[in-house]
């Protein structure tokens, strides 16, 4: 169970300003991929650039609803310049704090406010540009591309997990797949150029492995009075033996997997599997 402050609980159970303002000057429509929540903020701005009214509609957990409620209370009566300075920390502080796992709920509040002000000023936030791919959740291709690149997404399912796109009716799955292929191939072509050659002969592999062991692995092991010997390379399987102090160390398996294998995967070939020749 989450530990919510009394103020969070109070704003959750009796949320202020639910709905839409009568005279909409600006709308901020944001959805967070983190927690399956979304917030639609509407504001009324008068001719002196003061926010005279603010209302919200939120789909989400208690802290998302409480953050939205708090946000509307905070911005009412503020000038746009003042409102722009509100941070997510301010929203969380207003509520007496949020569990750290729930801070994204306050981030969602700030994003909605930014979006509503931008909407009023006729500015377009970079995320809102682009073409809507998922109609259920209003996710644009730019958001999808950004998520694919930033989080190294590799399947439609992952895109759904991160952006919610495709999580409703599912009709946009083909479009998402196309964007995924496009984005991934762009990324891989750029990466490939700087990458190590993909196919290696066994001899090349052995040489490279020896080189990495000598340069990256042995110095560390020797410091602890140990050493490592390359016994065999068979396809992706790399057989090694730990020597000296490492031989009798209870953590030898961890050393092989977490240290040696990681290094070799990083610097030689990603598909390598390092095993203890003695086991």
């Amino acid at each position: 169970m989450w530990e919510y402050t009394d103020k969070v609980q109070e704003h959750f159970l009796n949320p202020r300003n639910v709905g839409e303002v009568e005279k909409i000057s600006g709308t901020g429509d944001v959805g967070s991929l983190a927690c399956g929540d979304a917030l639609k903020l509407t504001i009324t701005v008068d001719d002196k650039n003061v926010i005279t009214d603010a209302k919200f509609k939120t789909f989400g957990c208690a802290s998302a609803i409480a953050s939205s409620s708090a946000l509307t209370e905070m911005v009412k009566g503020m000038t746009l310049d003042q409102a722009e300075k509100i941070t997510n920390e301010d929203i969380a502080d207003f509520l007496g704090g949020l569990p750290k796992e729930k801070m994204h709920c306050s981030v969602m509040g700030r994003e909605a406010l930014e979006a509503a002000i931008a909407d009023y000023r006729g500015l377009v936030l970079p995320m809102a540009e682009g073409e809507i791919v998922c109609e259920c959740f209003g996710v644009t291709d730019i958001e999808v591309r950004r998520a694919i690149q930033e989080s190294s997404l590799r399947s439609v399912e992952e895109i759904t997990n991160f952006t919610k796109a495709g999580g409703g009716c599912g009709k946009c799955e083909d479009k998402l797949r196309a964007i995924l292929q496009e984005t991934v191939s762009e990324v891989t072509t750029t990466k490939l150029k700087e990458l190590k050659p993909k196919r290696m002969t066994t001899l090349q592999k052995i040489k490279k492995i020896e080189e990495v062991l000598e340069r990256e692995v042995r110095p560390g092991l020797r410091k602890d009075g140990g050493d490592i010997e390359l016994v065999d390379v068979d396809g992706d399987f790399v057989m090694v033996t730990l020597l000296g102090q490492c031989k009798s160390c209870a953590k030898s398996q961890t050393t092989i997997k977490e240290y040696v294998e990681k290094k070799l995967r990083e610097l030689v070939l990603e598909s390598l599997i390092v095993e203890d020749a003695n086991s």
Partner: protein
Amino acid sequence: MSSVKNNVVYMDNNATTSVAPEVVEEMMPFLTEFYGNPSSMYSFAGKVGEALKLARKRVADLLGAEPEEITFTSCGTESDSTALLSALQTYPEKRRIVTTRVEHPAVKNLCDSLDTLTGHKHRITRLKVDDQGVLDMAEYEAALTDDTAIVSVMWANNETGVIFPIAKMAKMAKDRGILFHTDAVQAVGKVPINLKELDVDFLSLSGHKLHAPKGVGVLYVKRGTIFTPFLTGGHQERGRRAGTENVASIVGLGKACELAALKMEDENSRVRKLRDKLEAGLLASIPNSLLNGHKTDRLPNTCNISFEYVEGEAILLHMNRYNICASSGSACTSGSLEPSHVLRAMGVPFTAAHGSIRFSLSVYNTEEEVDFVLEKMPAIIESLRQMSPFWKG
């Protein structure tokens, strides 16, 4: 306005159960007077040993097993780990495990971490489920390859209550010479189990899911199945699980198994009726509500319903105001960023997965409680939907 006698309406019995009063009573002497170590030589410790023997017999009787096939552990998770790791040691040349996409984390996350745990590469086949949460037997048959050491499939799913065809699946594994483990934590005590008639090699159960205390579990190992212990040390449990026995809890579990056998009929008739009433009532009174899981191949006590366009944690906290206890597959309740892996495996869309509520009943629930929940839920869902930007109702 319906009324409930007890303050709390507890409908989260798949999470844990209340300890039955009869169980507490049976345990008390072993927390006070009979504190002896069952391994000791004096006679009052002998009494403790006898109590363990009776408990073992009672557990075996509920499962249709022999007492020597019962090993007491600390929990269901320990039983699961023990079974899988034992099988992998029995067949060191076989590195594949066949399991499902909807297993409890006790099995799911163990499979994820086997490579680092054992230092060997493993292959995990995770069987798909359809939108009702049901497995495809053709896919299962194809998955039973020569390099498979063990199959691990839960008897009933903790989130949806969907029951898998364990008898058939165990037979198919045995015909291919593959060991079979089932995590029956949710099934034991709720559906009849007779292991004598089944080709199940390992079965896990957990005390606190059937009105015994937390901290005690069982691993059933079929006679003749090769076994390697997980915990080694003393000779307790005939060398199968070292560590001084959790005597009072084991005694409690024995009593709970005896009670479960007596109440099985009630569970499958009265509790099922209560569940069906709750389910039909919620689906009828709340629009855009969907049942998750197969309608009939399901535990008699479990009901998982998605309320579209609202979020589970918010629903639970509103229910909490009326002291109604249930759980949700929403991301926000767990602290993870994704909703339930079970509902996602079933293809339940996000609009519905986040608003899923699991009600799991027990023999202690009453019709008044069901009526109370039916009275409160529609307004809770409606108030949250009025706040939801996705609700166009």
